[in-house]
């Protein structure tokens, strides 16, 4: 395990930069992870996706699939990719401070 320092806080991350403890997450941290991953500012639409990812993970222990993300987050697939061009599920999980989704869909 390694640590990363983002916006002045040191957190534990895995090799790909995903937080290993969701409890260490803060909103400031989310913004900093976003900036590091090519999203200069998190808009309310970004937040809607990130919050849905994080809440689903904390409630169920599993990150949602891209299919349910498109159906249930309130942000359709097309827009998801416009918001997170480098992979919506992966990036929203990273910004939301939860582990990288392991599903194939």
């Amino acid at each position, binding site marked *: 395990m390694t640590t990363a320092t983002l916006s002045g806080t040191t957190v534990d991350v895995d090799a790909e930069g995903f937080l290993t403890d969701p409890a260490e997450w803060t909103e400031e941290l989310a913004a900093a992870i976003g900036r590091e991953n090519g999203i200069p500012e998190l808009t309310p639409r970004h937040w809607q996706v990130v919050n849905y990812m994080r809440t689903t993970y904390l409630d169920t222990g599993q990150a949602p*699939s*891209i*299919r*349910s993300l*498109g159906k249930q987050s309130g942000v*359709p*697939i*097309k827009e998801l*990719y416009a918001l997170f*061009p*480098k*992979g*919506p*599920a*992966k990036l929203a999980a990273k910004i939301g401070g939860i582990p990288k989704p392991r*599903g*194939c*869909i």
Partner: protein
Amino acid sequence: MTITDHDLAQLTAPAAETEPKTIEKVSIVISKGSLEGVYPGLIMANGARMEGIETNVFFTFFGLDAITRKRQAHIKVATVGNPGMHLPTVVGAIPGMSWAATKMMARKMEKLDIPPVPEFVEMIADSGAGIYGCQATVDMFGLRDEDFVPQVTGVLTVGEFYELAAGGEIVFT
């Protein structure tokens, strides 16, 4: 011991690139029209977009059924000539077997949140992947533009496909 030209070439060759490489672009060919022939390519295409990889999907031969309006929703598991089904051929040939196997598979996939073919193709197109038909197959089956689902970006010749695939990986399924 003598040193051959081959040895010399090896000694003077530049060291292999050590930079970790990532896949930036992929072109997936779907050539089969059975359920088990179509899904792997769709899953790989969707998965590529999920990783932020530029993706094109090229449907050829019976694979074209997956983007054909009338056939897209009726793609079935092959229960005959498919050793993976572990069914004797005569059993697989009983009327309704393919239908039943397809139903069963669909239920299992729904549980895993894998969408049915029409929704899957739409999802992949919405993710920004290009969806293409193969010109030779279109000519052979006598298909017209209106036979295709609206997500189809265009129909390409093999040459155009290679142009489109340039600079990326090609996966044939």
